[in-house]
Structures are given as C-alpha cells and as structure tokens.
C-alpha cells in the first residue's frame, strides 16, 4: 500500500513536471478572486511572459527608442505614471490619463473608454498612436529580428521569428500576470486577518459599501463593474469618450469604471487626470457631479462629514498592495 502511495505521488509529480515542461502556466487564483479566463488562442506560458516582460520594458518599441510601455505604466506607481496626461515620444502629450494595469487580466474591455476588445488587440494601439510610440508594429518586429535574444525567445515562446502576433501575444501574456491581491483590504476580507484594518478604515469600508453605495459601480473583487459610464465630470466634455468610436450622442463623456485597487498611488484621477487628490474625487461625487444629459443616475449629491470623508479615504488607501508595486 505504501509502495502504491509512493507510485501515485511519483505519477502526480511527473504529471505536473510535464505540465510545466509543456510550458502551460497554471495560475493559482488568489482568495476571493474569480477564475482567470485566458483566450484559448493565447495560452499563458512562462516563455511568453518572459518575452512579454522584456518587450514591455524595451524602449525600442517607440520610433525614436525613447519610451517603453513601462514609461507610462511604471510598476512603481501601480503601472501608471502619476502624470495628468501621458507623454509620448518627443514629449508629445497623450489625450488621456494613463490607466493602471492592476488586474488588467480580468478586464473585458480596454482603453479608458472600453472600446477595445482584448489585451492582444490593445497592444498595437500605443505602438501606432502618433502621440505615443508613433511607430509601426512591422518595424518593431524587424528591430527584434536584429536582436539574437529576441529571436531566441520568440522561437521558444511561439516557434516563430519575431512578428506582430508574437509581439501582441507576448505583451498581453505578461500583462495578465499583473495581479494585485495582497492589500490590507485583501488580508482583512479574503485572508481572514481581522486586525488588518483599523477602526477608521472599517468605518470607511461600511460607508463605501452601504451608505454611499460606491460599490454599485466599484464592485466585486476588483472594485469595478466594467461599465462605461458618464460620471458628470463636465457639462461639456472635450474628450467625448466612447462616443469617439460610436458617434452616438448618448455615449458622450462615457468612460470605463476604473478599478480602485492601488488608487492612492495612481493619482491624478479621472480620464483626463483633472482631479489631483482622492479628496477632490470625493468632493466631485458629494456635489453630484455637473449637469450632463448622459450622467449616470447613480451619481447624486450626498452629505458627508469631515470624519466620514477621512474614514472613506482611509479605506481607499488600504487598497494599496505594496507587494504589487514593489515587483
């Protein structure tokens, strides 16, 4: 019987060894998080992640080799740049604030206005965008072909020389690994550490979930329901948001509900970075936003005492995952 157990153990170990040998990565889903859905056309492998990470930090993706994905999506700032609006090559100003990549693997739509359907498809946007990398993905592939390391990694990860598919699938694979699940909120809520939050933070959490119902939009494990909404930031939006693609007036000023994870370090806020502080964002919602025909009906004026505001901000600050930003 003992022999059989050993054989069984050996077989299990062998199975997992060969699973990894076949390069498919099995993520352990953090407590409280749903299963990660990865496109079947682009299963995650360790080689793809390695290649994707190298590309993510490589400035040769931009035409003049001055900036990389990480220039705007800086890990130190939870994959943002803490700028009002992102900067492209030659100091060109991008029209929007850089969104965080925190738990981007769980998103169903991409870019600030949610008009892009997949992480793989999104990769080409900053490469081709005139105010970002202002380059062409075919020429990025040519640059990669001149680098032995890239050729080697591409062949290992995809069995192919560098090409546009290699670039988009590798970077998407790396971005899917940017999972943040170790904030003090997670320790309190998912890991059973009842001392992880102090009294003020707990009061703030109750305000967040109950009285203020922030969680009607910033819901679930990732603090976003993924909806594209108008929050009444302006009476008239200079950036029309989703309408830019749909041309539908009812989409004017609509942007994706962002995750609140790591929110204390991803300032300034909103799609255009026009609000510098969390206090400012809360003031916007206390006021009920500006008049706008497309404003979401959940945005309504409310009262909040000074102490309650402090509690709410304290709660938002405990969504910071220091292990995530240290990666």
């Amino acid at each position, binding site marked *: 019987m003992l022999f059989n157990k050993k054989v069984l153990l050996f077989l299990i170990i062998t199975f997992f060894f060969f699973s990894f040998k076949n390069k498919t990565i099995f993520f352990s889903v953090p407590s409280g998080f749903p299963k990660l859905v990865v496109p079947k056309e682009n299963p995650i492998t360790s080689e793809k992640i390695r290649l994707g990470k190298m590309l993510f930090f490589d400035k040769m993706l931009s035409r003049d080799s001055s900036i990389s994905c990480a220039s705007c999506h800086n890990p130190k700032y939870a994959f943002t740049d803490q700028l009002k609006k992102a900067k492209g090559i030659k100091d060109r100003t991008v029209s929007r604030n850089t969104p965080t990549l925190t738990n981007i693997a769980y998103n169903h739509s991409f870019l600030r206005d949610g008009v892009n359907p997949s992480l793989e498809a999104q990769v080409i946007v900053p490469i081709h965008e005139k105010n970002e990398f202002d380059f062409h993905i075919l020429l990025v592939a040519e640059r990669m072909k001149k680098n032995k390391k890239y050729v080697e990694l591409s062949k290992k990860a995809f069995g192919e020389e560098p090409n*546009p598919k290699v670039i988009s699938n590798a970077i998407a694979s790396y971005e899917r690994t940017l999972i943040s699940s170790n904030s003090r909120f997670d320790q309190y809520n998912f890991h059973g550490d009842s001392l992880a939050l102090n009294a003020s933070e707990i009061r703030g959490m109750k305000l967040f979930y109950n009285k203020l119902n922030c969680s009607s939009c910033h819901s679930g494990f990732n603090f976003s329901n993924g909806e594209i909404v108008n929050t009444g930031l302006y009476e008239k939006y200079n950036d029309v948001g989703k309408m830019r*693609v749909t041309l539908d007036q009812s989409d004017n000023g609509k942007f994706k509900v962002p995750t609140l994870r790591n929110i204390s370090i991803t300032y300034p806020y909103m799609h255009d970075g026009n609000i510098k502080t969390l206090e400012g964002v809360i003031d916007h919602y206390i006021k009920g936003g500006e008049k706008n025909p497309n404003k979401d009906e959940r945005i309504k004026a409310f009262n909040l005492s000074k102490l309650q505001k402090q509690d709410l901000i304290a709660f938002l600050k405990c969504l910071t995952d220091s292990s995530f930003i240290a990666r």
Partner: protein
Amino acid sequence: MKKIVIALCTIICINSSAQKNIVLRLNHYLNQSTFQYNQNFETDGIINKYTRLQYYLSGFELFHDGGQMTVLNNTYVLASGHITNYYLGNFPVSSLESISFDVGVDQIANSGNTTNYPASHPLGPKSPPMDWGWPSGYFFVVTNGFTDSNNDNNPDTRFELQALGDQMLSPVDQINITPVGSNDTIYIDLKVNAEKFLSGINLATAGIDHSSSTNNLIMCNNSYQMNVFETFNVTSSNDKGLTNNNFIHIDNTLSYAPTINYHFENSNKVNLKITDLNGKIHIIENNLQNEGSYFPLKEFPSGLYIVTIENGSETIYKKFNVVQ
C-alpha cells in the same frame, strides 16, 4: 463495354469540374479614364483627386456552370486603386456567369485582431494601417485626397474618409461577367468607377473622418447605390486611351516610412531599388509582381531617396522624402 462507358463518363465529369484558378481583375477608372493618383476627376460636378484609395471585399459568391453557386468563405481582398489583379483561389468551376460580394469585412473578421494574420494576408498589419487600433476594426473603404472647395478648379482642400464599423458592410448584388480564361485560370473582369465612391458627400467639409459617420456610410453604400462596380467587357479594356500607364505613387501617410505604390501595365515581374542621393543602395528587391504596394521593412534616416522600378523594358523612378 459498360465499364468503358462509366469510365468515359467519369473522365468527362472530372474534366467538366476541373479546378481552376480564379483571378478577380478590378479595372479602376476615374471618369472613364484609367485610374491614377493625383489625377483630377469629377464627382457630382466637383473636381477632386485621390491620394489613396483602398477597400476590402469579402463574402464572395461565384455563380457558375448553369446555376451552381460557390461561396468563397474566408476569402478577403484588400483592393487598391493602382492594383488590378487579385487571386481568389482555386475552385471547381468551368464557366462563370456572375459574381456577388460585400464591400468591407464580415463581423467575425472585423472583431478579430490584425496581428493574428501575417503581413501578407489582406487582414494582416498594413502600412498605412487598414485598421483602427482603438476599437480594433478594419477600415472598409479608405478614400484620401483633395477637393475643390472654392470653385477655382484646383482641388486643394484635404479630405480623409476612412469607414469603420460593421454597419458599413455593403452588399453588391450579382454582376454578370464575361470571363476570360485559359486552361487553368479564369479572369473575372469588373469595372470600378472609383469616382462614384464620393457621390453625395460634401468633401469640402468632410475633413479627417475615421469613423462610422454618415459620410462614411454614404461612401460605402455608394458601392451598390451608385454602381461603383460594373460588368466589364475585356475587349473595351484595351481602349483605355492610354498606351502607358506605368507609375509610382508614394504614400506618405507615415512620414518616416513611406509606402511605394506602383503599377506596370505589362505583366512582367519587376525589380525595385531604393538609393539615396549619393547613390548608396539601401534596398534591392527582385521579381516583384508588376503592381503592388511595397512597404520597406527598413528604417531610413531622414532625407531624400529615389525608388527605381524596372521591368526589363521600361524603368520608372520617383523621389521620396523621409522625415524621422
């Protein structure tokens, strides 16, 4: 005896349904003259000129051999004003009667990712891009150029219409054809009245419009409403009024990486060379098709360059500027 008859019938059947290469020939015209870029033409009485004309065709249906229909799934054509020949595939067709297709790409392809295809595939990454990365969709029809907005007969107001969105898909009903064939190839000739894409659009105010706008919808719908595509008798194709329509057109959409559009009437293969003003050779490509769009996979320093293309009997060249 019976076996011999069966064998003969089988041979006849096999022969009658032999596989043939099907080539679509899109004969582009502007007001009855052979298409050229930067050539003035009239639409609705206004003078315009094209600097870029590209569009997708898909959903092909071939009607052949006395009422049979063959659907060409997953066949896409990226047509350009300067390119006539498009290979559709090899099919069991003997005699073609008509063809129908859609202008644009189907919803499934349109929701896909351009990087899933190699650059040589019509749906793969192009230069200048035929997709808009933001929503990840293809431009169904692209017309860029200039229009005469002040009646001085000089088209100098820029327009850039690039139609995007599933609703732009425009079906072109059956067009009767007079196929020209050889033993193994059937050519489907269509006349493309390229000026008609712009009918009913106020180009003076159109501006740069990459979207699902009304103007772009009109442009796509003109495919069938204005009969952009017509039956074409190949005999008349010899009456184009031009004996020499060989040209190079530089597309400068990407200032740092121009695309070289070229067209030779003669079907001989061509050789392409790019040199700088000091004569230094930067690129040599031999045995290219007689017409095409060449995107150099090389980064040029800023400066002036000369592209030379020759087909054995004629050499043409053009200067182009690279701005990094």
